[in-house]
């Protein structure tokens, strides 16, 4: 199905498409210690690869997305390196970053209804992205936009072009957002929860559109979500994030089949099996991981997941686990991954 074998290219030290090294981002916070949104995060992506980022709200997923395209607020403190096609993005002047945003790396926002201007036609908004990066005559631009709309399976491209955001349904809006991201044929699309608040049937269609993009054009996709099921059969690799770090990183089926980190195990236990009848007696519970994400302002020295962890040991509270590679192409940061 996929031409890229698991564990190849980016893992073995070959740069590939994107390489994030020891990325740390903290935000100043009035009267408190700074919020450490990302802590020495490592991530790699090869050309044309689909990498899933799995994590709860507050784990730093959106901060990661914004760091890659350089759109963090002015008061954020950033450390580390982000290599994109062997070019260092960290510290690049705004002018050059603007040439990359939307053209080489595109972001698909969570809520497309809010990410589109309510007073401009959606076709014009897609055309604006093209206009920002390529010099085409207006008529050519319009034709280009209509052809992109057809690629994301919005067949009635004339009507969609002329429509305003409030005239479109949720599914159509998500597709328009993907079309905007596609407009300049980027190498990498960062999709931040692209199926949020969508019905199950529409969700499947959007996933189909993304899958098609990846197969037909070789566009790499960084798929950010909190639901593991969406990545099944789609993501080549999965990186599990917790409290600003990647705690597990491996091939899609490896992470699903043999999850190593207790957090990953907890998440995967929740993927529903509609046919399961165990939970329907009154008072029975779903296997939810207890507690909530840690306060990023006051992280202690040990493992951030420790308070919620079941198989924890004494060392977990004192030291931060190093990254281990228990099997080829599968990394984890945990002292007790084999429990």
């Amino acid at each position: 199905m996929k031409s890229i074998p698991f564990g190849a290219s980016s893992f073995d030290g070959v740069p590939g498409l994107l390489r994030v090294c020891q990325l740390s981002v903290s935000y100043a916070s009035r009267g408190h210690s700074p919020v450490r949104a990302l802590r020495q995060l490592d991530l790699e992506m090869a050309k044309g690869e689909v990498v899933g980022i799995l994590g709860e709200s507050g784990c730093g997923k959106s901060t990661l997305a914004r760091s890659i395209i350089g759109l963090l607020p002015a008061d954020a403190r950033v450390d580390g390196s982000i290599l994109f096609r062997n070019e260092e993005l960290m510290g690049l002047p705004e002018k050059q970053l603007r040439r990359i945003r939307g053209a080489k790396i595109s972001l698909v926002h969570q809520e497309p209804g809010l990410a589109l201007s309510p007073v401009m036609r959606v076709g014009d908004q897609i055309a604006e992205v093209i206009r920002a990066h390529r010099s085409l005559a207006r008529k050519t631009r319009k034709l280009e936009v209509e052809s992109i709309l057809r690629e994301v399976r919005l067949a009635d491209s004339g009507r969609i072009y002329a429509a305003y955001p409030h005239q479109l349904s949720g599914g159509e809006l998500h597709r328009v957002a993907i079309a905007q991201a596609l407009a300049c044929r980027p190498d990498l699309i960062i999709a931040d929860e692209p199926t949020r608040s969508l019905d199950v049937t529409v969700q499947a269609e959007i996933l189909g559109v993304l899958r098609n993009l990846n197969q037909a054009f070789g566009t790499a996709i960084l798929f950010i979500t909190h639901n593991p099921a969406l990545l099944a059969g789609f993501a080549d690799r999965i990186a599990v994030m917790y409290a600003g770090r990647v705690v597990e990183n491996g091939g899609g089926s490896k992470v699903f089949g043999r999850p190593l980190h207790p957090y990953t195990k907890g998440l995967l236990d929740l993927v529903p099996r509609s046919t399961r009848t165990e939970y329907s007696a009154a008072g029975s519970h779903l296997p939810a991981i207890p507690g909530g994400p840690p306060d990023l302002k006051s992280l202690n020295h040990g493992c951030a997941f420790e308070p919620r962890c079941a198989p924890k040991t004494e060392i977990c509270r004192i030291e931060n686990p190093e990254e281990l590679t228990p099997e080829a192409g599968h990394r984890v940061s945990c002292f007790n991954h084999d429990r």
Partner: protein
Amino acid sequence: MTAEQATKRAARPALVRVKGLHKRYVQRRAFSRSRFVVDALRNVDLELQPECLTALVGASGSGKSTLASCLAMLEKPDGGEIWFEGREISRCDARELIWLRPRIQMVFQDSAGALNPFFSAAQIVAEPLEVQRRESGRTLHQRACELMEEVGLSADWADRSPLEFSGGQRQRLAIARALALQPTLLILDESLSGLDLVTQAQILNLLADIRVTHSLTYLLITHDLSLVGQMADYIAVMHQGSIVEHGTRQRVFGSPQQAHTRKLLAATQDLESAFRAAQAEART
């Protein structure tokens, strides 16, 4: 549910019985002579069994929220009947509503919008008690703190603004507020949408707990059947303003009868089977 429990449950009369409910919205467009007519509810029939969780599934625009508003008496239907505990309530006057409102409570989707940011958490929870003049002063605050603890929020947070709470915590707060008047029926309108998987599971567990302690009946409206489907006793499917399918969980999942239901289930189960396949592939 065991067979014995099932027969016991079935023997009790339905808590809520909706018959032939319909509601139409008419919008006058400023620029055309035509009026824009939307039949939000078309001849809706539904029953809610006591102390059971009924999940109402449907796409956006299918009329789920309108049905919830009518049940919670926030809107008046144009026709049909709603029977609650043996009384017809869709044409109640203001006096009867005073008795009725505490018994049917609602939790909304957008917790940030549904909770007043200028109130403290305790004030939000205490508000219904104050409005209905059931408590006052010190006992009010105490009761609010008790309710907060019951939904898993620390009473130390009683004076914080809801904006400081996470999404899941805000929903817990909304549930605490809904519990204040000791309702019989709790309607949750897409209350889990927008929360991540772990938080959704935690809230569902909380609901399972308080269902027993407070003898609650739930109508849980959602567009995503995956998690809720595991906890529901009954499932009702809504499509374009009518209930197209309604039955126990086993029956609806096992043998869905309507095309629309099948489509919905297929989409849900596709994801899950892809997931199981990926797991199986890795283990070989």
